[in-house]
């Protein structure tokens, strides 16, 4: 019995749910947190000394591309969840742009089978809104919801047909599901590959306009408000989007949103030199947009940080810029990136960071995660907040190595990740 016990000693325990930030011990048994207190008596074999360390609820990343089934050359449930654990992420929402898309009960159960067999962290499922993510015909949302699908999104393909999306919102409301929108008007983004402006002009590449993002956000908010349904907006990247979302929230819309670390760490200038690891959709934007994203995180307009982890093979990335795939990996770097750019700079404190990366996404998805409270699942990450490290391509364990952060120095290292009461990751140098 005592063998399954783990005691975390003297860590600075951050719990956004209880609004707590204090030195404490945490005792884990049977996959659950059984005690959070000072000076818990040392009665178990495994004791983790967390003195000087930050103890956070395991991260919940609500935007992850695990690629399986269909694109196992990029990522698998096994490699993606291993990468997650290395980054302190204990729960992910798997996006449905797989082959086949997660658009039917059959494909949900196919995916659930792989998860059961291979997943090393908690994997929750986001289903497609339309069959094959084609934007033509609604999936059987009711039955997929009952089978355990938490959210619905056509992911990289924004639903162009407003009527179809309205129907999806109405169904989602009825069955208490969340609609997640990748907001992009493809007519306005028109084959673009970088932010429209000086960068696109300088590089001689087609630009992606800001309007292509925020005009679609405006439309999708309007539709969700009409249907009185919840809407979560994925990967917000520009100032206008933040402003539109802030206003809609003020007016009472049932609205949440996320951004990704690359939108507060990097500007469009990172693309100069045609580095395709910086080719991301929505694109890296201007300095002013980065400022707006940071402000939106600080003032609560932006609820969550998610990686939009998107692995691609070298063959799909190490080619002409306009032909390369969009996306960066992010699971292994997101906590360090956020600690470096948001906490160490004073934009967020650790409690707020834990809210953005764990509690808030849990609440948005309606899962019982994100808190360090007695009785909860023991999903915990221990972080050395001041240790510096440099991101190196050869250190990634994800199925793909296309990181926008390679070469960057971060402050904050994941030392231990405990998932469902077990030590699932331990840093080599820690």
């Amino acid at each position, binding site marked *: 019995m005592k063998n399954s016990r783990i005691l975390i000693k003297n860590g600075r325990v951050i719990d956004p749910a209880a609004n707590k930030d204090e030195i404490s011990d945490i005792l884990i048994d049977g996959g659950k947190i059984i005690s959070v207190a000072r000076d818990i008596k040392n009665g178990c074999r495994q004791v983790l000394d967390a003195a000087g360390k930050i103890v956070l609820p395991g991260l919940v990343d609500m935007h992850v591309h695990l690629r399986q089934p269909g694109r196992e050359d990029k990522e698998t449930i096994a490699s993606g969840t291993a990468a997650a654990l290395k980054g302190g992420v204990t729960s992910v929402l798997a996006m449905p742009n797989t082959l086949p898309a997660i658009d039917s009960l059959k494909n949900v159960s196919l995916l659930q089978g792989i998860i059961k067999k291979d997943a090393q962290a908690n994997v929750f499922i986001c289903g497609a809104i339309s069959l094959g993510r084609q934007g033509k015909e609604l999936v059987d949302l009711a039955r997929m919801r009952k089978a355990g699908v938490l959210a619905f999104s056509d992911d990289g393909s924004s639903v162009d047909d407003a009527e179809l999306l309205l129907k999806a919102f109405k169904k989602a409301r009825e069955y208490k599901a969340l609609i997640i929108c990748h907001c992009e008007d493809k007519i306005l983004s*028109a*084959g673009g590959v970088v932010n*429209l*402006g*000086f960068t*696109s*002009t*300088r*590089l*001689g*590449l087609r*630009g992606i306009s800001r309007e292509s993002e925020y005009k679609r956000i405006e439309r999708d908010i309007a539709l969700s408000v009409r249907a009185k349904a919840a809407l979560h907006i994925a990967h917000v990247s520009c100032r206008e989007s933040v402003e539109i979302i802030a206003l809609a929230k003020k007016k009472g819309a049932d609205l949440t949103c996320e951004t990704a670390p690359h939108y507060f760490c990097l500007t469009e200038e990172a693309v100069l*030199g*045609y580095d395709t690891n910086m080719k991301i959709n929505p694109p890296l934007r201007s300095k002013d947009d980065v400022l707006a994203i940071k402000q939106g995180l600080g003032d609560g307009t932006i609820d969550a940080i998610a990686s939009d982890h998107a692995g691609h093979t070298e*063959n799909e990335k*190490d*080619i*002409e*810029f*306009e*032909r390369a795939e969009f996306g960066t990996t992010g699971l292994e770097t997101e906590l360090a990136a956020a600690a470096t750019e948001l906490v160490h700079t004073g934009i967020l404190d650790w409690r707020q960071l834990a809210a953005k990366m764990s509690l808030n996404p849990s609440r948005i998805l309606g899962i019982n995660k994100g808190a360090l409270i007695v009785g909860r699942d023991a999903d915990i990450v221990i972080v050395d907040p001041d240790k510096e490290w440099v991101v190196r391509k050869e250190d990634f364990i994800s199925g793909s190595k296309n990181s926008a952060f390679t070469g960057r120095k971060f402050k904050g290292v994941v030392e231990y990740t405990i998932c469902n009461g077990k030590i699932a990751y331990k840093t080599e140098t820690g």
Partner: protein
Amino acid sequence: MNWTRKDLLGLEELSKVEIELILATAESFKEVSSREIKKVPALRGKTVVNLFYEPSTRTRVSFEVAAKRLSADVINIAAQESSVRKGETLVDTGKNIEALKADIIVVRHGASGAPALLARHVGLNVVNAGDGWHEHPTQALLDIFTLKEKLGRVEGLKVVIVGDIAHSRVARSNIWGLSKLGAKVCVCAPGMLIPPAIEEMGASISSDIDEALKGADAVNVLRMQFERDEEAAFPEKLEYFKNFGITKERLLRAKKDIIVMHPGPINRGIEISSEVADGANSVILEQVTNGIAVRMAVLFLVAQARDEKQPHTD
């Protein structure tokens, strides 16, 4: 100074001093083309590969002549007809050329940034002969060389570039190069052909060619390719000629000795009238001649940079 760059990818990354070094080197090579025997041994034993993914006659021939006058061996690959059609990637093609022990790749490609990709993956010298809408550095260098030859200086000159700026690599390279050398560049086109934030590159914008030509020392007339970009909004041909075409009447209101340049091939009656193209102000054919000297200089300098980095083993 010594030239240290393995590759010539664009003028944006070059300093004023580097551009001046190319121009000075070109000056010394220009004389070679007027000799009885038009050859120097500067690149003897070197192999230059012209790797062209877009149809091009004038640039490709110019590079070929330049390489041959330096005594290099030249291979021309028209990539539309080669193994590329069988799906070989640009990087693989580059590595194969490297395995042939060639020395310099001159690459023309429809994708902006393709020469940079190639340069990252091969040890050979890579010279950009035009990539997408990005840059066409040797064209801008020969334009600047011609200007300098005609007017004795570049600094302080007012140069108008008229035409499809949005889709022009020639315009971008000229803006970078001319601005670095202290010229004032004005781009002139209908609004739909001006790309966003071009003024941050150092150019002013005009939509009135008559206004733009006032006081200008030179006008560089871009080829209008109405057939090129189905999706972009283009002005109607005759209307374009009426509003932006460079005609004798227009030049009457400009400086008497204004230099008229064109990267070719020219569309008579579309962006330029025949009278102007063949007239006293035109330096279009001199540009072609100067292109040889400028490309000889570029090939010579990049080859030298690599030789310094990789000492001969013999």
